């Protein structure tokens, strides 16, 4: 789960970078970059953090 979280987070960044070549319109790029940010945040807060929460010190 930790490594999945890392990969999802990086993929979100790559989506944002690829907005530079997928379209030339500002609104199109804006949408793609926003989607990339959401994917990265999902990787951090939804996957990576949850992986660590499973064994959190207060659950032991």
């Amino acid at each position, binding site marked *: 789960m930790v490594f999945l979280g*890392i990969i999802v*987070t*990086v993929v979100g*960044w790559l989506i944002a970078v690829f907005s530079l070549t997928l379209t030339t319109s*500002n609104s199109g790029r804006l949408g793609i970059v926003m989607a990339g940010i959401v994917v990265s945040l999902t990787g951090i807060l939804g996957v990576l*953090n949850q992986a660590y929460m499973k064994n959190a010190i*207060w659950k032991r």
Partner: protein
Amino acid sequence: MRKVLLAFVFVWSVALPGVVLAQAPAPAAEPAAASPQAPAAAPAPAPVMLTDADIKNISGPSADDRAKGDPAGTMTGTATDIPRSDAAKGLTLADLVNQVGQNQVAINFVWTLVTGFLVMFMQAGFAAVETGLTRAKNANHTMMMNFMVYGVGMLAYWLIGFAIQEGGVGAVANLGGTAPLSAEQTITLFGKTVGIFGKNGYFLMHNGTYDVGVMVMFLFQMVFMDTALTIVTGTAAERWKYAAFMISSFLMGAFTYPLFANWAWGGGWLATLGSNFGLGHGYCDFAGSGVVHAVGGMTALALGILIGPRIGKYNRDGTANAIPAHDIVLVLLGCFILAFGWFGFNPGSTLGASGNGNLRISSVAVNTMLAGMAGSFGAMLYMWIRYGKPDASMSGNGLLAGLVAITAPSGFVNPVAAVIIGLIAGVIVCLSVEFFDRIIRVDDPVGAISVHGVNGLWGVISVGLFADGKSNYGGSWNGVSGSVTGLFYGDAGQLVAQLIGVATLVGFVFTMSFVINLVIDWFVGQRVSAKAELEGLDIPEMGSLGYPEFVLKAE
């Protein structure tokens, strides 16, 4: 593990087909464009021709007069004080012109150095805030992390980091050129040549970087880097193994921070999003909401997740307990020190006070103080309305949040926008602290993730919204003519460039920080033992108590 690494490499190779490694010197800095709006009505007056003969007749006070002293100050600083290149010829036009050039660079040197000294003093503010917000049993440990992060960060930056960040920045006109910083590693991204890291300046001796302008640049950039590093110690306080802190800080000062700083400030790919891909003026971050604060905040978030919450922070059902600060007086004093240092942080980021539109330092300084004020009001009012009391520590964090948020836009926005940005930051910091504390359950003893990470990102975005197109630093920014202009003033492309910066901070910087600290965790261990944590880290980690005459309560 190997499979995971292979997968990671595969993703890179598949995802970046347009990337071709190439080695090329950084392009020479573009000449500044002419001022975009020159009045055209009245005919220009005839030029006054000066010759060496005119200059020769200028005389200063005699040596006899000078020997009598100058209590009124009218005889000091005259033509007599201008050095002559040839005593036999006397004062020439060339002497005069050279002196004007040196005066401009000297003003900019002094400005940049003194503002750098102010930023260095912010370390004291961070130390006071973080130590005050944690418990007395960890005072020595927390203070010592804040103390030594200055040294370990500086060492890493001198050895490696500065070259990566600034090694290819090119000529910085305000500082007289910095010509030796001219080698940037470039790649081809989607058909455009973009920079990814600098290569000159290792040890400040490499490839001609033993240079007065480079020294000014190093001092100023070094204290910025150290600010980013010290943000992390707050989030990991009260449970971070000291040896892990040392290694983590060194690697951040050597690689993580300089890499993103190169991309944003060193001529890297984010800075050229405007000239290469038509996105406004590229990623614009005047003084570092993203480069400094969000990099620190994203690293703090990575470490906060990795290291886990303090013992006693959460109950078995996941509800959070408040762990009160041990010295709120120290916290607010630290906030004031930081606010003072911010007058170096933002106005100093012009890297000069003379020439190239640098008189805007007044506007930058006023924006900074207004946003800090608005941030403290925003947080105080939010806490007062929601909880019935004007919470002191959150008011302090509101001040810092406002300052963090205005750091990127301070050079590009007007005072009304500065107040709006600061006010929103003050509310954001309160909401964000609650979010991380109660929903995400990342324990952050000082609120660094919210103050620096979340509001750093807000500051970056706010440039893309509020930049009013009135600033003019030599006629161009990031190689694009004209002034930086945000969405509310007509340029949607600038907002896209800022959001790509945000995506890089969240997706790349966070990941790089997380992986570095994960590896440290494998080899050294990030967290102290439960016994040491309960006892307090002062004796187990540092060998002496911060407050030896206090009677500390055991848990």
